[in-house]
């Protein structure tokens, strides 16, 4: 009676992993964590007098942990990419969210207009009504980010406008945008950052976009909960 038991256990041990994997509860598949950081010099149209928004996520690289405010922002078992997107105007958060891509390619629509509504008052305190205080025209990123794929090392292929870049873990892609006679001009950190500085000093809008690849993360490193 004991042999059949052992045989059964052996069969179970061999068969269980594929079964579990097929059921989606195998070892958690790692995903790549990307941070997309967008800073705009002019996109905010009103000073927040009251702002009790809570941060949508907190990324603690010292402890390799990510806390998200909403379960919808947590990675699922099929998640390939987790993108933490933070856009600001004049230093004030316009949007902060974590989006997950379970299939690739996947697009982060930076050109979509953002909304931040509230009761707006003029300089002297007169109520102007409820309005969107984000000037999307001053968000100068002219393209969306299309994430094409992830290789085994965690490098992410991204199409940004006319160019395709590959971001390896630890790498970042940093550009700025200003307006000139020909429309929006892309500036690179390594080459012509001085033009961005000059535009800022002239009081013209500047948008800075940085994409960082933090490599593979596991689901256990992401927690849903309060700060």
């Amino acid at each position, binding site marked *: 009676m004991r042999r059949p038991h052992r045989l059964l256990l052996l069969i179970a041990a061999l068969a269980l992993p594929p079964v579990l994997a097929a059921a989606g*509860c*195998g070892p958690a598949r790692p995903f790549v964590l990307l941070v997309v950081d967008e800073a705009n010099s002019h996109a905010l149209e009103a*000073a*927040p007098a009251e702002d009790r928004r809570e941060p949508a996520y907190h990324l603690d690289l010292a402890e390799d942990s990510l806390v998200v405010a909403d379960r919808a922002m947590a990675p699922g078992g099929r998640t390939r990419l987790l993108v933490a997107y933070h856009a*600001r105007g*004049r230093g004030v958060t316009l949007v902060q969210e974590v989006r997950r891509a379970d299939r690739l390619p996947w697009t982060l629509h930076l050109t979509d207009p953002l909304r931040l509504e*509230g009761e707006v008052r*003029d300089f002297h305190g007169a109520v102007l009504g409820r309005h969107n205080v984000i000037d999307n025209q001053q968000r100068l990123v002219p393209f969306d980010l299309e994430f094409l794929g992830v290789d085994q090392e965690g490098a992410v292929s991204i199409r940004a406008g006319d160019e395709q870049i590959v971001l390896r873990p630890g790498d970042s892609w940093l550009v700025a945008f200003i307006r000139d006679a020909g429309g929006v001009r892309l500036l690179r950190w390594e080459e012509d950052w001085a033009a961005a500085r000059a535009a*800022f000093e002239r009081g013209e809008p500047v948008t800075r976009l940085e994409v960082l690849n933090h490599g593979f993360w596991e689901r256990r490193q992401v927690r849903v909960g309060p*700060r």
Partner: protein
Amino acid sequence: MGSGSGGRCGWVRASATVVVGLILLHPAAAGGQPGTIRSRDPGPRRVPVILVPGLGGEAGRAWGHAPGPGRRGTGLLAELADRAYRPGRDVFPFDYSTIEDEDFVRLAARELAGKVQWVLERTGAPEVDLVGYGYGGLIGRYYLRLPGAAGRVRTLVLIAAPARGAFSAHLVRVAAEQARQDLWPAPPRGGATAEDLPPFRDAVTYVAERAVVYGGLYHEFLGEGEVLAGPAPPGQARAEAGSFTAWFATQRPHLYRAWFLETQLPPLTPPACLVTPPREGEALTLAYYELLALETGRHHYLRAATRRTVTLKPPPESILTSPDPAAGVLEYLRAAAADYLYQRGRAYLEQNRTSLAFQVLSRLLPLPTAGVAAERLVPERLAFPAGRDSAGRPIQHRLTANHLLWRWNQSESLPPDGVRQVIVAGRTLNLAGALWQGVTDNDLVVEVESTLVPLAEDDHLVVIPGLWRGTHLALLQDSRLHQTVADALTLPHQVSHWQQLPDRPAGWARRIRARANAWRPTYLQVAAQGSSGGRLVLTVRADGHWEAARGGLGWQLWAHAVDADSLVQDTWSAEFEREGPVPEARLELPAPGLHRLLVGVRLTPLAAPGEDQQSASGDGAGGSPARDPWAAALLGPGARDFPFTYEVAWKPDPPPPPPGAERPGLPAAEPPGEADVPPPRAADPDSLPPRAAEPEDHAPSRPPASAGGDERLTPAPPPGSPPRAPTADPAESPPPPGPAGPLPGPIGAHGLPEVSGHTAEPPRVDVQTVRRLITSRKESRTYHVRWEWELGDGRRAVDSTPGLLVSRFTPAYPAPGSYVVRAFSFSNQGQILREQRWTVNIPAGAGTDRPGQGPTLQAETLGEPRVVLALEGPAAWIVGRPARFTVRAWAEDPPYGKIEEVEADPGWAFDVVWSRPGTYSVAAAVTVRVRYAIGGRRFTVANTYLHGVKVDVAATSVSR
């Protein structure tokens, strides 16, 4: 999906975890290393440490646990175990959880006294260390105020102890007042009305001024920290993105430091907002206003840029409409606190205050100017209506707004002498994450309650940055905290004192108190970068325990000169005097080229008389305690700290004497003596002209004045005699003698030529103390004040006419004879400036029917140059930024003198940096060196003149 699949797979993972765990925990697999006691060596006994937990008082929850067989240690206890502390032997957690009274700090402090006594008796140690977390720190501080506590505590470590009141308490308090105003316009207790400006009378100005600074900084942040920021450092997210304060801390550390200090320390000199100090029970931290100013500045920048404001969420439901008033109070206060900080801060700037900063801002922004600012505080207990009871009677909800705040506000007191404080603070979100607009992840909101105690010289302040996860509870779990505390208890500590010697040698001295023992030497650092010379004189005086040191131990003062690469260049040492009532050691070191100096004290066993020196010398820590009971006390386990006083003085080199100068810096010229005054000689009728006598010291060739000058015989002229104008009018002045002096500058508004010089690199003076003069020199002038004539027959005449540089006198004698007449010019310092003598012959026959009258004698003395000074600089300034001052001087050659050199101290131009706000005196000294030639003699007189201005120093500077 996730939870469902997790349930199905749970048993698999749990089983694997158990197996793996068992394997890892098996001693053989662990190799005896992890999971076991990290140090089996019991090691030396430490000074016993008592751990005082925070609110709640449960000892078991705060400190983790020491490693034991089969388990790893955690928390502070694990770190202490690594340093050879053993629970029950060296470490004693204190529990006061049974105290439930609001007065728990005082009650627990009394229980702590018993615990200290018990530990001392149990261990035989002379002192204990106290580590207090949160309110445990307050208990420790309160304990030190109890009788008998002094001398029993060596070090008090305060971990986030709200010694100055928790920031949350302030928020609640202010919010409560706002709520009260909304509910009851009339104040309780007959307190302030809406139009009053109680204790923080001028907070408006303060916040406005600071907000201007932060507004400017915010613009810089948007550029550098936002749209122009470079790529994130490898391995780091832009976690601080959008965090103004984080950028502030990292990119403007000098300003952040000032800001940090402003938010931490009670001002030594009251800024405008503290002119009227808070009444008892109404103490506020400056931190509140500083944070308010920062947020206000940021808001105003944004408001000016956008010309609009937006409310991103509707205001909270009013307490008046809340269905549950009791619960609504807290909710209301929470929301109102956030509103208050923001709205009031903005209102401050919009109201018409006579603040320079506000006026500047008003020019930039068309702010409305109506309204009166009202800043009020409230009593500690507030009553709110809470509906009615079943009988219809009104119910009051009483809210204790800040009893913990005011009652235990001990910030103004220092612990007893001999107790070193180590303050460990964390920058955490505190409650700001919930209340503070704009605080984002990783924002470095300082946990202000932690560090508000005044610091003594060798106290330490350690700030642990980068904490996250809400409250200061996170601090207690941080390994850096454990290490910091253990270091504070076990490692040599450095006096947190740097003294930067000024470039311009003006002399400097500082007295610093410190403590040391054999295994924990104390040292301090003196930076001497840029010093151009002089000598450092180090004196260390033992404040006590001298008798102990005589028991076979010597005390040694040592000093290491350290170069820029921290390599020891030179070493000096001196032993303390072993006799005399005041033991002290003294070293005098050359300062040129000195980069940094470490000064310290150590104890060394010394040979007793007749004992082999070698056998007794060596490292202090390696002495032979058994040989001497004092050595045991000094070198053995639990060695006691001994207090010292360091005195470090920098004496500049004296200025090189000018070529030909006989007495540089001569305070008084030409003392009478053989060299100056010829010996008396017999009267010689031929030596005198018929009507005027030539003084024997061969005064400059001036035409002899006519006889018949003023004559005063003994006694001195009565008070009220009309002053006499000096006769040395320019027409009569001889050509200026002496060497050629500096070329006079253009004639200034004073009618005098300007003589100011220039300093190539203006020295910078860091002012750390209040109301300090910038120059260390004192006014020193030498000028003539009085003539005294000796007539040679015992009579004297005195003339104290101010400014009378030429005195004429016609003596008369009742009898013929030869008389030696002497004229003395006395200085304001009582010294003889000049002596002249004549021999007057009264021929026979004279004086028989009328006094025989001699010739008119004329004596001349030195005149002081006419000097006018001006010190040009700002009348109002801000902390942290150099204020440039320029010294201007105009001077005119005096009679018989030529200005040879004019120098200014600290320089013709100098910068002053204040680290704290307040009203300061800035004074410069100008020394005018005049070379005189009179009567065939040449000498130099140096006069020093001071000129000072008042400067109001208000706020942290902007960086551009």
